[in-house]
């Protein structure tokens, strides 16, 4: 059902002004024979090519996209292509998760004098695209739902209700620190004892409302962007602290403004699973937490929620109970005992495992089915601690006009791609985006995939581990040991 009726396919080329565009010109002047499928867009530098341009082109029906810039070390702006190389390699490895064959996108280096090389590159790439044929279109794929598989069943660290943790000591410490702080953010009980909501402690009596336990799902680091430049305290779970560290890495928060509190976290609920047990619109009473399960009366019937079954999958794979960065904490971290369990921690999370188990075409069907029910509420974006553009999100701007208001799954999937790519190398996998999605769309899979690509490419890099580290897409290396340059 291709729109292209001739033999030609649609290939978009982003060529840097200084080298590859010159190279193409040289090839043209030399009257080198070239395929005619390529449509060239001249850009100042390969570093100017936002990976989103490439995804947009592929979503809108391009059969292939080629980016070509100056050879590394030869960039007109000295480092543009070093950055580009990292971004483009990450994108190339990311495309398959969306259901797009990674061979439909290539990036190469061609200098202005290399007319022959340009001829070779464009011929090889065009042949590659022709051998793949016209790109399958999302519009032509029937939506299909797939069910998540089983997840790791034994947690690495024992889960619990955290009820025996030294909360009293923590409260005292917060009260002591409060006079020097504008606010300390933690959790309090929400509409019922099985739900918590963020708590903003400004006065000593507010601190008494603080709770600790499996209902504290929210990542309160999300509020940091609102309190930039203010003296604030945060009560953190170990995983939340990674977001704080990442913000420090990016100079989006300053260490001296922050006072970080913590207790050992023994896991938090996956409310998607909890709701399957207790229903979405029910009356609850008599909530009890024991060390192995929570019990609750639901519309008069007793229900049990064993933690191993009802906590978030990230908690099952968690290897540290206390944050890597903390000012005031109580209790101990049994991380040392868990060293052997690393392998289990590295196993694929269920969302990603599901998508990876599918063929490319099934992935397109999967994303189509998933995104069709998205109603673009924006909860995923606004609950993300790393989404720091806030009111200036490029998905909202009209100039540049990245996204339309049209209610199509492709636009909505494109929004997820924007979010995921803007988090590449920055996402701490707290899972707030997916937790916040009222429709349970497994959008975390995209972030999980990117994190694994980044970790593989950049020496096991994990966002939010060390405040002094530079996020990998904000820097470059002259030689990239893990990035294989195109040989053609």
């Amino acid at each position, binding site marked *: 059902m291709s729109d292209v009726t001739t033999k030609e396919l649609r290939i978009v080329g982003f060529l840097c002004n200084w080298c590859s565009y010159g190279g193409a010109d040289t090839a043209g002047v030399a009257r080198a024979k070239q395929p005619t499928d390529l449509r060239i867009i001249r850009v100042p530098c390969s570093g100017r090519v936002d990976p989103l341009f490439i995804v947009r082109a592929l979503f809108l029906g391009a059969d292939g996209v080629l980016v070509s810039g100056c050879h590394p070390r030869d960039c007109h702006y000295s480092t543009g292509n070093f950055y580009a190389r990292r971004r483009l390699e990450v994108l190339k490895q990311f495309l398959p998760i969306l259901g797009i064959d990674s061979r439909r996108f290539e990036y190469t280096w061609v200098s202005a004098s290399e007319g022959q090389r340009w001829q070779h590159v464009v011929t090889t790439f065009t042949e590659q695209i022709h051998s793949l044929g016209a790109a399958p279109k999302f519009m032509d794929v029937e939506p299909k739902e797939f069910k998540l598989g089983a997840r790791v069943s034994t947690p690495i660290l024992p889960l619990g209700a955290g009820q025996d943790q030294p909360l009293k000591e923590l409260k005292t410490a917060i009260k002591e620190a409060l006079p020097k702080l504008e606010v300390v953010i933690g959790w309090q009980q929400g509409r019922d004892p099985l739900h918590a*909501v963020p708590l903003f402690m400004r006065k000593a009596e507010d601190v008494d409302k603080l709770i600790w336990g499996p209902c504290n799902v929210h990542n309160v680091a999300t509020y940091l962007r609102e309190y930039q430049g203010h003296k604030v305290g945060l009560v953190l779970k170990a995983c939340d602290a990674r977001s704080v560290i990442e913000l420090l890495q990016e100079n989006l928060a300053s260490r001296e403004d922050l006072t970080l509190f913590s207790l050992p976290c023994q896991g938090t609920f996956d409310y998607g699973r909890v709701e*399957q047990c207790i229903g979405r*619109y029910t009356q609850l009473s008599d909530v009890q937490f024991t060390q192995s399960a929570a019990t609750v009366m639901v519309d008069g019937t007793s229900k049990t929620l064993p933690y191993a079954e009802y906590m978030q999958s990230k908690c099952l794979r968690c290897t540290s109970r206390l944050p890597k960065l903390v000012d005031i904490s109580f209790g101990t971290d049994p991380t040392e005992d868990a060293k052997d369990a690393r392998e289990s921690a590295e196993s694929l999370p269920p969302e990603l495992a599901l998508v990876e188990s599918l063929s490319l075409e099934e992935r397109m069907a999967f994303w189509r089915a998933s995104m069709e029910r998205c109603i673009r*509420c*924006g909860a995923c974006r606004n609950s993300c601690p790393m989404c720091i553009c806030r009111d200036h999100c490029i998905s909202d701007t009209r100039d540049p006009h990245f996204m339309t208001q049209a209610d199509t799954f492709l636009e909505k999937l494109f929004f997820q791609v924007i979010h995921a790519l803007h988090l590449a190398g920055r996402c701490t996998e707290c899972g707030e985006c997916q937790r*916040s999605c009222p429709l*349970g769309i497994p959008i975390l899979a995209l972030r999980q995939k990117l994190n694994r690509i980044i970790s593989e490419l950049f020496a096991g890099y994990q966002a939010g581990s060390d405040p002094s580290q530079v996020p990998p897409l904000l820097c470059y290396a002259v030689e990239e040991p893990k990035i294989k340059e195109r040989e053609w």
Partner: protein
Amino acid sequence: MSAYSYLTAQEIPTLVERLAPHFEQVLVPTEQKGVKESVIFAPWTKGSPISLAKATVPPKAAVFPKCETLFSYKIEKDTQDAPKLTLNPEIYAPKTLIFAARPCDALGLNILDRPFLQSHYVDPYYAAKRDKLCVVTLTCPSGCENCFCHWVGIGPAATQGADIVLTAIKSGYVAQAMTQKGQELLEKCAFKDGTDKVPEVNQARKAAWESLKPAPDLSQIHSTLAQSFADLDFWTQETQACLSCGACTYFCPTCYCFTITDEGDAQSPQGGQRLRSQDNCMAQLYTREASGHNPRPNKALRMRNRVTHKYMTYKETWGAFACSGCGRCIQHCPVGLDIRAILLAAIARTTNTPDMQGGK
């Protein structure tokens, strides 16, 4: 024929099958796979499964779609002649049945009717769809933690806005025709007469009412909110946790804010469309003017607008709340912000500090 029909639980799909031929589109609650259970109103085809659970997303899109084309435009420019402008309005209004909505969903449609149909202008896009809409509701068997329909004047067994009301009884369901349209449809479906089941229906509805926790008196809430309006500290305090995402508005059966945008170059061969899309008053961009001036620049003011619209200004204009108490804003808020808590805090604020009336 009586207004009541009786059918067994197994006959629910039969009911849909018999109703379907009278419509171009039948929207039924349909369960979705994913990382949490969600139910949306999806087009029904013979054999597709029907969930009777309360839907995650209200059915308002049937009359007020997520996004719809107002008209398409195209400008053809010839160097010689004057440019030619073509505008093609498109009003898409299939005959639609919403099946197994809840009373709060049906009331939501009534709430939307007023601004779209009874204001200064009749909205032709809404009117066309509304005119061809038929609603079958299912009364709720009990109350729950996050819905509060009885606070706003309806309840789990309310019938407003419905053409046919289904109520579960022990041995199945009773369908009650509420309108002429509903009566005619039910007659065509030819189920057994359910008049003898009416006592059971009433008992089920009474049981639903009895399961509710007591509701506060909201009869004066509009003046309570008016008194709290200028108290910015109050609104700042109540909205601290808000992330400004807007899930509360998109999942609300009564929110009707929208935006209008042009998508597509007028002079391109295919032209473009002017779209109307549901929008979100929680967003900073929503009210920002081109000059940069923003009358509602922070989340406290935006939430104030949302809350006062629902319980104060809409009530002053139309004599009813713009809230059907469905609780989805509470259920789906990523941080569990509870609109009920804001109302209760406003009431507490005015009762505790009578000398502060009129704000500060």
